[in-house]
């Protein structure tokens, strides 16, 4: 394929995905908005005043970045894992692409972009909802965007690996519920690790979400429990690692071809 033909194939995959996301928006965009509205209500309006300040900012301002990240990470992951799983398992529509000359990396890029679109759009929507509950301070737009994109990318890639490997619908649902969710909640959405006992604080350092949430929060508030460079390094490494795993799986046809 010429570069232009590859671009057409890539655009086709994305366009199809956007049509799908919009068609079933109550399943794709709405759930995160409902959950985060509840969180904002509880932690902002109801509990916030009792908790007081964290790192010198009102509690709701402290939790907003983490809650946005929660949506970004979950939506990116669930999108790629589910779309990949359903297209290889239920109707075998993935064969439409596998029989074509579209190279594996274009397929990966297309599916990942679908995850990015869902993750980032949902994140922005949640951020807009947050504006009803608090005002936002912005320390650095560039850092916010960078972390938004990188985190979405990491989890879209991870979701794709899950989708390619999964042999049942359970295998797709298990990770978000039993792995992702705990990692996000324990990664410091609701508290600063500075307030944790040393054992728990050091355990948190093994949680990739810790780096994501802190980096993203830094973009807004200019405060972080760790150095930004460490966050970047962790995310960058994860992106590279996961991209290689995906490419390998698809090239070998593992999980997709018999």
């Amino acid at each position, binding site marked *: 394929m*010429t570069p232009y033909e*590859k671009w057409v194939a890539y655009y086709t995959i994305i366009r199809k995905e956007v049509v799908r996301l919009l068609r079933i928006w109550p399943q794709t965009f709405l759930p995160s908005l409902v959950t985060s509205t509840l969180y904002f209500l509880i932690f902002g309006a109801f509990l916030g005043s009792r908790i007081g300040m964290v790192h010198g900012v009102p509690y709701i301002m402290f939790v907003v970045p983490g809650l946005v990240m929660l949506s970004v990470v979950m939506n990116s992951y669930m999108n790629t894992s589910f779309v990949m799983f359903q297209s290889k398992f239920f109707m075998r529509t993935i064969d439409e692409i596998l029989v074509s000359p579209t190279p594996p990396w274009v397929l990966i890029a297309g599916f990942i972009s679908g995850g990015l679109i869902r993750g980032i759009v949902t994140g922005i929507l949640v951020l807009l909802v947050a504006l009803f509950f608090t005002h936002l301070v912005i320390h650095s737009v560039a850092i916010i965007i960078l972390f938004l994109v990188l985190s979405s990318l990491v989890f879209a890639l991870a979701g794709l690996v899950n989708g390619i490997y999964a042999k049942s619908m359970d295998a797709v649902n298990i990770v978000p519920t039993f792995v992702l969710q705990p990692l996000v909640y324990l990664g410091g959405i609701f508290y600063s690790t500075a307030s944790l006992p040393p054992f728990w604080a050091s355990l948190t350092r093994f949680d990739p979400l810790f780096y994501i949430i802190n980096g993203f929060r830094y973009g807004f508030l200019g405060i972080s429990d760790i150095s930004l460079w460490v966050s970047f390094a962790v995310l960058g490494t994860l992106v590279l690692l996961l991209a290689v795993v995906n490419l390998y799986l698809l090239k070998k046809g593992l999980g997709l071809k*018999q």
Partner: protein
Amino acid sequence: MEDLALKTTDLRKTYADGTVALTGVTLEVPKGDFFALLGPNGAGKSTLIGIATGLVIPTGGALSIFGVDAFAQPERARRPVGVVPQNLNVNPFEKVIDIVVNQAGYYGIPRAVALPRADAILKDIGLANKRENIARELSGGMQRRLMIARALVHDPEFLFLDEPTAGVDVESRRAMWTYLKTLTSKGVTILLTTHYLEEAEQLAKHVAVINHGTIVAQGTIDEMLALADGRTPEGEAFRGGKLEEVYLKLTQQAPEQN
């Protein structure tokens, strides 16, 4: 080499669960041919098509399409190929026109070019009035025709059809035959699998009979008939009966392997 559409040499496939599907298939399909691959259920027909179209990973052997090694240059080899799989694999929620146009996209054909082409094919194949319907709203026979339209949108030179008329009523079957004949008259090479002997006799120039993963006979229809004992063919009905006799003889020789 160049005048062969498909050449397989000692093609083998053992599935992950140990099922031996192909035990060394050597086959040649001339360019422009209408080739019927006959064989009972489980003989290995779909496996062969799967390997040729990049959906099944072979265990051994070689396969080339128009002289291009399909294992060394899979994307290049797939380019001139269209495939209609045995099982329905259209996304039930996608619109007919989108299914066809998106498929063109995976071959690098932009929407603007694909749309008029898709409309022309849908008209030819009798689905023009279903253009805006989602696939779920089509009958089984219509979905099968939709899969043919999808396989043709990039103007393939080589069309694989895996039991395209299974479960299709007699009238539609005849219409499909006529349509397939117009395709071969335009120079498209067709490889069709079927277990309707009448279909092979009506359409095919060359026939191969596959049983238990190996080709047990190969040649023109007349050569196949000559395999029947002694008597010379007389009327059409007798011919048909005769082909059946040959077919049964060929496919019942080897005992069931399980």
